[in-house]
């Protein structure tokens, strides 16, 4: 089964949000068949740091990407998300 990688930028709800706690919350909320390959922190401006999550997911299951986007947006501490790129693994 083919895997797709997605790099997604995640904006915290607040500049002062604890990012390691946010990473845990995101990990816990994602569907079981989706894995986080890594988190990077991207400093943006005036103390704001976004997370970039590289996720791996099964390609063939329809709606998986929507499910991920919904789960991320519903995670406490997440404000907005921005997909950077998707590719076959």
């Amino acid at each position, binding site marked *: 089964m083919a895997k797709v990688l997605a790099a997604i930028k995640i904006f915290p709800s607040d500049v002062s949000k604890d990012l390691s706690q946010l990473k845990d919350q995101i990990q816990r909320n994602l569907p079981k068949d989706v894995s986080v390959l890594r988190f990077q922190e991207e400093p943006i401006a005036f103390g704001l740091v976004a997370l970039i999550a*590289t996720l791996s997911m099964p390609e063939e299951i329809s709606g998986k990407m929507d499910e991920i986007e919904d789960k991320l947006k519903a995670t406490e501490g997440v404000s907005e998300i921005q997909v950077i790129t998707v590719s076959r693994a």
Partner: protein
Amino acid sequence: MSAKPHINLIVIGHVDHGKSTMAGNLLYQAGYITAKTIDDYAKESEQTGAGETFKFAWVLDSLKEERERGVTIDLSFQKFETSKLFYTIIDAPGHRDFIKNMITGTSQADCAILTISSKKGEFEVGVGPGGQAREHAYLARTLGVGQIAVAITKMDDVTTNWSQARYEECKKEIEGLLKVVGYDTSKINFVPVSGWTGDNLVKPSEKMPWYKGPTMMQVLDSFTQPPKPLDKPLRIPIQDVYTITGVGTVPVGRVETGVLKEGDKIVFMPGNVAGECKSIETHHTKIPVAEPGDNIGFSVRGVEKGTVHRGDVLGHPDNLPTVAKEFIGQIIVLAHPTAIAQGYTPVLHAHTVTMAATFTELIAKMDPRTGQTIEEKPAFLKTGDSALVKLRPLSPIVVEAYSHIPQLGRFAVRDMGNTIAVGVVKEVTEKA
């Protein structure tokens, strides 16, 4: 990171036409993978009863597994280097679910290799109605990929047998479909290759002495980093907005076109919220000027929190982002369970904006092979159709004519979790 210019290469084409095999073998021939690794895959491949068939495709798969185990963390997306450029390879997912993300993703492909098998039957399916060759060519064009090359693969296959006549036949057909989607085919390289034997990947093929053009590697080296669209009007789709103590309102986004300077008078559309850019930061560093590609946060004077949102677009007062009440889109219907008729209201995704939109008029249906109008005012559109349609967002949104600012001129149409269509903005017919 390499100091060479960085460029994103997207590999597209119909399922099973040899994308992974060609990419794997290219990496091998360029010295990124050892012969031992390839042999190990050949053995693994043989054990499954598939013969050596998958040995090159598995190179990519195995790197993927390594990545999953976190062994080579920096290989999350496959990297590749030629003498001139540093590439990130994007292997386009075959599933249509991901097309929306390709259209609205902030990191766009700069160049593409369209991979099409010359094998009898396979070729005809790939370029035929519903084949992904056409769909992906259209997608590449929609994504604004200006540089494209075509790899005609599986030249070693018994049905092709290195034949120049078959190559010419395939080339002619592909030229046709690339022309229709808007490419100037006189500037496109068509390379007959075998991902399997490696012919014409790095070394000129002895089996195809009739071919005088560049190898795949030379084609890769001929790609260039596209210039930044500095001379276009300023457009920054807003990704999020913060209120930061001591700083005030801080919108965040990626500069798509134009230049933002400290002290500039600015306007957020469609809200028509005016203010001034006080200061700009990227990577927590103050910069006086932000350019296309920069991911920035900027502090603003005179803008109340709650008046600016994700999906808004920032511009300069003398060249405001275009707010569309209604626009003409040129679309291709990728998949619709039944048919699209006037009044249909799915969801539109463009840059950072998501908005329901109604098909207020089906203007014309076009022949996907020639681009000619085949039916005026069709009653409905079905899967595979390409058409001009009028779209009316429920509330006005910022979009631009693709010919003017392609970065803000492409969109995906989604309904019930399916990507129904993709398209570009031909013309904004009613401005707010």
